[in-house]
């Protein structure tokens, strides 16, 4: 039995009626959550699927959360299949990762039939759920907990397998850093396909706290605010861009005195965003949490204090220092440690680091290695510097990766799909920030109907990777070195966007 499940089971046994989950104002106790999870796990046993992973179609319902535990109780691992992603992308994920079954709502069954044969789907409503406080004794030699897929510059999503031992290492830090209990309510406002959701779910559940999940359709930031307000949520994790929506819709005047902790994550944190949130969440301490999925959610965390304003670079808060089990190096192009105050690439190592992408050994070799002691290291591609307070500050990316609404996007992947549609290499994608929100804009050569291109893109990539606008130009401008002149494109077309 995995240690994470054992921790959750302690609350099931000792406080069975404590609230585990609130979604859409409906509440499940720990014992209800466990009963559903055990019943779904039993169904997985009974169906005798061949070895492989279990897909979870992200309906964002209570049942979906029970299915996560069910896969582990049955000695399996899960892969979130985001219902907002295009079918083609989900099919590519399934092909790449040996998914043998999918949990879904009955109402999502038709969508899932296109992903796997109907007989391999499990609709929650077909499972008989009986009160159950038992702890299955399934032993699994497989440490794998979940696999998440992220944008890949070659057009193929990269699968990142994360084991229970990786997650356990993160949770050891979380429990020490954020001790929670019966009276704590933890916001979970992220799609399951984004790993911050995993940190929110299990930081709450392994400590017997209540997870509160807002509606993830519409404006998530507004729905999250409503959940914080309606349920008096005290432990809040948000992307900094959430403040853009709250500010624009004049919601920051409402005090949230019961919020005691806020973690900003998923994007670089401007100091003024944190300061603005503090006017609303007056009693909250604020942390800035950083980490690539390859390092199991969070690797460095910075606690804001009265000195933070002096510690910013380009107005951005530091990302702080490594968490309990993370080692860190800042290196130059030759892989040598840089001196203090010098910029370099951040490498992170330790038991939270993944061991390589699914079916992409070459890509894995580029970014993951084991040192002489057998410790795994990941080259993040993030350029950072240590400030005079010995805190790490994020500067920029080494490559063309950006964060859109917290999701990692390789501009190369968006360009790859756009080029496939126009059947030409004459396409370039730029990320442009407008009032604190980063958006994508594309430029293609020739005469194209923007609506048609956008519709085609929506069939190929998730919404956050679809450009906001596509400009068709007679010719893409080039600079003196013969490359597309992105500076000119920005100044000419994006200044007023």
């Amino acid at each position: 039995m995995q240690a994470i499940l054992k921790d959750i089971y302690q609350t099931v046994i000792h406080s069975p009626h404590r609230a585990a989950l609130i979604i859409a104002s409906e509440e499940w106790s720990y014992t209800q959550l466990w009963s559903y999870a055990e019943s779904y796990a039993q169904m997985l046993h009974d169906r005798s699927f061949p070895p492989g992973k279990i897909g979870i179609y992200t309906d964002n319902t209570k049942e979906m959360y029970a299915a996560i535990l069910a896969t582990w109780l049955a000695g399996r691992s899960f892969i979130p299949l985001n219902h907002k992603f295009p079918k083609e992308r989900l099919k590519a994920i399934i092909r790449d990762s040996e998914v043998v079954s999918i949990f879904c709502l009955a109402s999502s069954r038709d969508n899932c039939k296109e992903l796997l044969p109907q007989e391999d789907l499990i609709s929650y409503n077909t499972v008989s759920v009986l009160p159950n406080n038992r702890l299955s004794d399934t032993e699994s030699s497989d440490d794998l907990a979940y696999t998440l897929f992220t944008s890949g510059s070659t057009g193929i999503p990269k699968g990142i397998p994360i084991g229970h031992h990786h997650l356990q290492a993160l949770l050891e830090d979380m429990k020490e850093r954020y001790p929670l209990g019966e009276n704590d309510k933890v916001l979970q406002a992220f799609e399951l396909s984004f790993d911050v959701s995993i940190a929110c779910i299990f930081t709450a559940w392994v400590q017997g706290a209540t997870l509160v999940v807002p509606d993830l359709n519409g404006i998530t930031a507004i729905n999250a605010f409503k959940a914080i307000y309606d349920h008096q949520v005290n432990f809040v994790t948000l992307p900094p861009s959430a403040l853009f929506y709250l500010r624009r819709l004049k919601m920051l005047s409402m005090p949230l005195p019961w919020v005691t902790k806020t973690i900003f994550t998923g994007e670089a944190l401007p100091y003024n965003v944190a300061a603005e949130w503090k006017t609303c969440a007056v009693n909250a301490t604020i942390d800035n949490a950083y980490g690539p999925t390859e390092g199991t959610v969070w690797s460095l965390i910075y606690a804001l204090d009265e000195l933070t304003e002096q510690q910013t670079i380009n107005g951005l808060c530091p990302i702080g220092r490594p968490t309990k089990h993370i080692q860190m190096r800042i290196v130059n192009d030759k892989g040598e440690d840089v001196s203090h105050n010098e910029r370099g690439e951040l490498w992170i190592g330790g038991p939270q680091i993944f061991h390589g992408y699914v079916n992409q050994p070459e890509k894995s070799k580029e970014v993951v290695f084991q040192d002489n002691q057998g410790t795994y290291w990941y080259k993040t591609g993030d350029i950072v510097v240590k400030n005079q307070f010995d805190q790490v500050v994020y500067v920029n990316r080494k490559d063309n990766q950006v964060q859109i609404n917290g999701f990692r996007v390789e501009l190369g992947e968006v360009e790859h799909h756009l080029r496939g549609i126009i059947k030409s290499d004459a396409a370039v994608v730029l990320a442009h920030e407008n009032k604190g929100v980063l958006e994508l804009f594309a430029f293609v050569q020739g005469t194209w109907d923007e609506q048609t291109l956008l519709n085609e893109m929506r069939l190929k990539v998730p919404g956050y990777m679809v450009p906001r606008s596509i400009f068709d130009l007679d010719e893409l401008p080039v600079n003196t070195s013969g490359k597309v002149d992105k500076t000119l494109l920005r100044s000419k077309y994006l200044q007023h966007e």
Partner: protein
Amino acid sequence: MNNEQIFEKVNGVFRTIFKDDTILVTRETTAKDIAGWDSITHLDIITGMEEAFQVEITGFEVMNLNNVGDLLDLLAQKMSE
């Protein structure tokens, strides 16, 4: 402005935001029904409605919008104020 005119104008805003002339929303339409309807487009829709109907919509009002029908009712109420 009668309900039909409001409805037509609302559809116009949706078509502009999603750059799709074929969109036809109903009172029951929600974010799940239109590809690409995410946080940023939702805000674009609210801004588009504010401009089209010369009203101001707050986040507290947005919180209670569950579908296009709720939006139509809110717009009708604001215009009658």
